[in-house]
């Protein structure tokens, strides 16, 4: 029977059926569930792990493939930047067992800091890329990716996007075909990439690209669907689904399941058979530019947009000139509902203090990025994972000591391990005096609760050796380390003052578990008593349970939102908030 599966779950099923032996990933929306699903298959069949970052994950996969086993790593688009270094050279080495790198783009930036288009990586690294458009294709393409990898001796990229990863559609699942390990043999010209060998492998890579381009012409995933009328559409991935919804049988389609290298003859013949051809693709004009370089008269980006997601109505307007029917709209401007830190979030205490002290905050990526939003408004910069530490180092070096004493970095436990520790080493080595606050909530929160090297558990929930953050920081040369409960705002304030003022580098570990963890059990609810003087200090916490009545200035706590964490009880200067047990 057909099953309803998330695109990500279908990728996992495809890899499982293909006999994958190792999956190593670092979480990142919208790719995370692939690896989580992998961990539901038997441990005897697949070794699955969360790696400290994408580069490490990719390297584990490269090693596994050289050692003869099929392996896969999954990441979000920006994760591919982190794994790019090993990937570009793995393109030269190729594989033993098949190696698949699955990358999920996020058009519309539902959960991302940029909107980059990963297809450029396939071209730049000179490796093939497949792009499924629904869950059934996710399964089929993933399986095919492993075969392609071994057949052409190349790592393969599998590109997803948010709407493919996070949509469920019907899938026919199969059973696993065990793949015996390929023989391992030492092969220096192939596996040791130093100039003398790499020169030889580059020749292989160029020749392989030619063979892959020839394969693309007959690849079953590149299809042409003809309908009457002179309009043609070239599309891949989710854009194909949008186009079908919008245009149905009124146009002909060239659907590309393999988006690099491209089937030039197929495209030429398709374009020649149509009067007008539109390339429908979100983000960059990747296919369009390739067509234009072939001298094919196609249209695309100029009529659409490089920004955000496409919709069927947008496609209908451009291709058919049909305007959408008018819709009903609210008669007033509605207040936005941006994401917020949850009730009980441990980060709230830290940002409350940082806001109060008016410090410059070099921020990072995680739930705590939400500390940038009003009313906490405490974050000055957010770039990429790890940059809170290293960018603050740069800031301090150009602006000097006084600035450094008004500056802190904030970084989550998972992010610190991912790439914060290297920045901290830079600070120590190059005589910085920065203060770094590690927001240790005992979990990788933003991506939905994955374990990491600091939590003491593996992806399968087994107990493992836990990275000791204090010992780690001490070993790289940090002598001043304080551990503080972020809900003890008075002590935290005092420690932050003291550590920013001192002329040595320091680390503050703000330690309290995420309120959504099962082991965290807050009870009761908080209530505003008649001692309230309407000073609004509690409103500065930005707690979703505490509201201000703009007209009367009265404060109230919504018991359906409050989880009784009690942070507000501690910050109220008049003792006007009380905790009630149920």
């Amino acid at each position, binding site marked *: 029977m057909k099953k309803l599966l998330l695109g990500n779950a279908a990728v996992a099923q495809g890899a499982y059926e293909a006999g994958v032996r190792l999956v190593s990933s670092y979480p990142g929306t*919208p790719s995370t569930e692939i690896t989580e699903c992998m961990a539901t298959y038997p441990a005897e069949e697949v070794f699955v792990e969360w790696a400290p970052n994408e580069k490490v994950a990719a390297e584990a996969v490269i090693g596994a493939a050289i050692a003869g086993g099929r392996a896969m790593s999954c990441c979000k688009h920006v994760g591919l930047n982190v794994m790019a270094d090993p990937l570009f050279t793995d393109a030269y080495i190729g594989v033993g067992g098949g190696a698949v790198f699955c990358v999920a783009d996020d058009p519309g930036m539902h959960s991302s800091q940029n909107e980059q288009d990963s297809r450029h990586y396939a071209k730049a690294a000179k490796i093939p890329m497949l792009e499924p458009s629904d869950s059934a294709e996710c399964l089929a393409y993933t399986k095919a990716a492993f075969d392609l990898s071994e057949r052409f001796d190349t790592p393969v990229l599998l590109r997803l996007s948010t709407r493919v990863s996070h949509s469920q559609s019907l899938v026919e699942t199969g059973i696993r075909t065990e793949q015996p390990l390929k023989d391992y043999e030492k092969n220096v010209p192939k596996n040791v990439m130093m100039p003398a060998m790499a020169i030889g492998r580059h020749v292989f890579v160029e020749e392989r690209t030619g063979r892959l381009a020839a394969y693309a012409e007959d690849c079953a995933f590149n299809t042409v669907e003809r309908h009457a009328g002179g309009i043609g559409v070239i599309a891949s991935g989710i854009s194909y689904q949008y186009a079908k919804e919008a245009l149905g049988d009124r146009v002909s389609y060239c659907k590309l399941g393999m988006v690099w290298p491209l089937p030039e003859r197929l495209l030429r013949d398709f374009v020649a058979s149509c009067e007008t051809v539109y390339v429908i693709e979100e983000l960059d004009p990747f296919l369009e530019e390739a067509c234009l370089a072939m001298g094919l008269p196609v249209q695309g980006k100029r009529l659409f947009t490089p920004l955000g997601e496409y919709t069927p109505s947008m496609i209908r307007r451009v291709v058919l000139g049909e305007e959408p029917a008018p819709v009903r709209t609210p008669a007033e401007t509605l207040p936005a509902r941006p994401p917020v830190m949850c009730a009980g979030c441990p980060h709230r205490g830290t940002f409350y203090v940082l806001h109060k002290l008016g410090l410059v905050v070099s921020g990072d990526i995680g739930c705590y990025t939400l500390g940038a939003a009003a009313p906490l408004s405490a974050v000055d910069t957010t770039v990429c994972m790890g940059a809170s530490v290293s960018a603050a180092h740069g800031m301090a070096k150009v602006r000097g000591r006084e600035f450094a004493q008004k500056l802190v970095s904030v970084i989550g436990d998972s992010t610190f391990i991912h790439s914060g520790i290297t920045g901290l080493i830079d600070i120590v080595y190059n005589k910085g005096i920065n203060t770094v606050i590690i927001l240790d909530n005992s979990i990788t929160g933003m991506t939905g609760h994955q374990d990491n090297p600091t939590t003491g558990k593996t992806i399968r929930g087994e107990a493992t050796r836990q990275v000791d953050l204090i010992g780690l920081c001490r070993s790289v040369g940090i002598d001043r380390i304080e551990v503080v409960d972020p809900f003890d705002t008075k002590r935290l304030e005092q420690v932050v003052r003291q550590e920013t003022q001192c002329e040595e580098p320091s680390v503050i570990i703000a330690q309290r578990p995420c309120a959504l963890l099962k082991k965290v059990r807050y009870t009761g609810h908080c209530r505003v008593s008649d001692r309230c003087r309407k000073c609004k200090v509690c409103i500065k916490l930005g707690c979703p349970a505490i509201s201000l009545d703009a007209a009367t200035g009265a404060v109230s706590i919504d018991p359906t939102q409050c989880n009784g964490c009690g942070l507000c009880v501690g910050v109220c200067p008049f003792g006007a908030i009380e905790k009630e047990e149920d």
Partner: protein
Amino acid sequence: MQTNIMIVGVGGQGTLLASRILGNAVVRRGYDVKVSEVHGMSQRGGSVVTYVKYGDRIWSPVIDRGEADIVLAFELLEAYRALPWLRAGGKIIVNTQQINPMPVITGAAEYPRDIVGKLSAQADLTAVDALELARRAGSEKAVNVVLIGVMAKNTAIPYDEWLETLRDTVPARFLDVNLRAFALGYQL
């Protein structure tokens, strides 16, 4: 034949489980179906939107403006925000719960008044106090299943099939509460 159902709410309200129950119920009937979910950042208390589309053949997993047959809203303001997605003749089912978004909490914006009145002037509306019904069923957490119950009556899927789907989808220890919650919604 195609039915488009848009489920909207606030991150953390359980819209995802609702869309999964709906998706599973529809699969049993042999329809083609796509369910587009939201994971990640907006789950942290932001506006969340899930689309369920079923029929003979479904292409895009996303519902465009003016195309939703039913908007199932877990929260008042989110129902109002979804109005442009409702098709002519479509129906809104709304939970009367109000959850203040941050701009309202800080006093930077006002929560719109009388959303139920405004929406029913513009659309076919059923307003339900699902929180109260969920409490009556035995758990505030069953709000999503109460709302699924209300919506179920507006679909062609028979009552018994919904119950079977619930049995398959909901963990055994929560089943009784959820069956009661579903019935309370359905009987409305």
